[in-house]
């Protein structure tokens, strides 16, 4: 299958001063295909943001890539010279909107100055006016009010700040946008406006694909093409949105789905059970399947051997029950 970006057996650990590793991403193989929104979901601490930072090549020590590749068009991005990555990949091929990005806008600068700085970083020759015109044209195209360029960040609402951040991060027409929790801390109506903007970026072919990281599965129901569920540094299930949301196979996916509180009848009809226990310590994750201590359906083999990937139709499930 054609892909824009692929991680192969990717392992990325936080190495502490005492030499212990926190195995935040521990063998993840995942591909991002053209024209899709790939949702990456899981609880906090499952490694989804770590995965996003490695996929966007924005990882910094103490986070290190221990093993595995991140490839695009057949070339390994992890071994590419830093200068080349900076000029050709970051912002041009892959752009990331990290968690809380909207609060990273400089409070003492108008939004337009940020756009100028960013564009001239990539095109030193560009005049200020040209940079502003470019940003204004994009803002018009996406239906945002042009005044945001002249505003300071504190003059914008949360939803507008987040949309501005997304527009700025896609000014250089990257193929891939990685959005890490772009809608958390926003009201439902602002959430929807951010989602509409992301879909408009795809529709207008400004970007080709999105990796959308969140813990809110009802949001992925609205925009994802495929969904990857992560638990304790590993993928447990990867399939189409419909498969994951409506017919989950992995016991963790099933449990996670059942705890989603949405205003729909089934939520009030019975008491919802939470998932017993807590996620494991990633310094010393449990042997075998990492979910086995909390799994209601565990088999003897689950505590001793890691489940291999099993293809079920188009989806992949890492669970002994599927073998």
């Amino acid at each position, binding site marked *: 299958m054609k892909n824009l970006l692929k991680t192969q057996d990717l392992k990325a650990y936080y190495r502490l001063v005492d030499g212990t590793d926190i195995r935040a991403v521990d063998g993840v193989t995942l591909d991002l295909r053209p024209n899709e929104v790939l949702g990456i979901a899981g*609880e*906090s601490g499952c490694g989804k943001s770590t995965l996003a930072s490695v996929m966007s090549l924005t990882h910094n020590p103490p986070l290190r890539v221990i093993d595995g590749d991140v490839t695009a068009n057949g070339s390994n991005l992890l071994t590419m010279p830093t200068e080349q990555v900076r000029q050709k990949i970051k912002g041009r091929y892959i752009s990331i909107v990290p968690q809380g990005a909207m609060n990273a806008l400089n409070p003492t600068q108008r939004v337009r100055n940020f756009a100028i700085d960013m564009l001239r970083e990539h095109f030193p020759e560009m005049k200020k006016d040209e940079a502003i015109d470019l940003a204004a044209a994009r803002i018009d195209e996406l239906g945002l009010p042009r005044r945001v360029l002249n505003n300071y960040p504190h003059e914008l609402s*949360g939803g507008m700040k987040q949309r501005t951040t997304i527009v700025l991060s896609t000014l250089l027409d990257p193929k891939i946008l990685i959005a890490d929790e772009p809608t958390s801390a926003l*009201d*439902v*109506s602002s*959430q*929807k406006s951010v*989602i*509409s903007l992301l*879909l408009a970026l795809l529709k207008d072919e400004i970007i080709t694909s999105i990796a959308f990281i969140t*813990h*809110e*599965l*009802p*949001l992925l*129901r*609205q925009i994802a093409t495929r969904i990857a569920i992560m638990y304790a540094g590993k993928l447990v299930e990867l399939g189409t949105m419909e498969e994951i*949301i409506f017919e989950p196979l992995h016991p963790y996916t099933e*449990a*996670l789905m059942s*705890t*989603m*509180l*949405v*205003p*729909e009848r089934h*939520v*009030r009809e019975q*008491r*919802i*059970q*939470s*998932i017993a226990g*807590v996620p494991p310590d990633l310094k010393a994750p449990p042997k075998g399947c990492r979910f086995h201590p909390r799994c209601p359906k565990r088999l003897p083999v689950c505590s001793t051997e890691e489940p291999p990937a099993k293809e079920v139709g188009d989806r992949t499930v890492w669970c002994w029950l599927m073998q």
Partner: protein
Amino acid sequence: MVLANAVEPKQSSSPLLEVSNLTKIFGSGKDQVVAVDEISFEIQPGEILSLLGESGSGKTTTARMLLRLSAPTQGEIFFEGQDVNAVKSVDYWKRVQAIFQDPFSSFNSFYSVHSFLGKAFRLTNNHNSAADKRARMEEAMEKVGLNAEELLFKRPHELSGGQRQRLMLARALLIGPDLLIADEPTSMIDASSRVGILNMLMDLSRQHGMSIMFITHDIGLAYYTSERLLIMNEGKIVEEGTAEQVVEHPTHPYTKRLLDDVPRLRRKWDI
């Protein structure tokens, strides 16, 4: 003390708390902001309800006034029929307690769990022995699913978000309030543990006849836990009704829009 004996919710017709034309205005002149605009509602004994609104709707300002942390510009609050201004704050806080959004900022990072919970006895005038207090703390921690033996001498930074939130609740239980105001109690907690905390709150309400008012923007949470919903927008309560009524047959345009914008599982947005 409420904690000691489990009772069925009281079936009395007089409300526990009654709010009448409550208003809060910040600033003056042209900078004047009406944060809460003449709202009125009642809370029945043992009832769970939600005050639902987006940021800036005035819901947290309302919560602060109910807790007497902020004085209303206008309007009255009656507790068991009595004007709360006639009651000493300390006595009021024995009956009305709160848990907040960010469980970390609620703690002094130098205090262990033991000294944090110990402070709660100041409100209850409990002059019993240290051993008795310790037993009560352990009982309260047990009730909220915390292992007292393991955690009693830990400090806040050694606890997870969920544990801190449960600890806030244990403290409230030591005091044994009749009304608990829960301001976004699970917004810092993962979906899977969120349901656990909510179930616990609902059980405690049933066992002790404690009323709970959730202050939240999370419609799913409100729908799951509450008998009644109050929808707040721009300082006003725009709609009020049972959870089923409001969610299935909203009448106010604002409520309709809010329900349209919530991402759901069984319906896709039209965008």
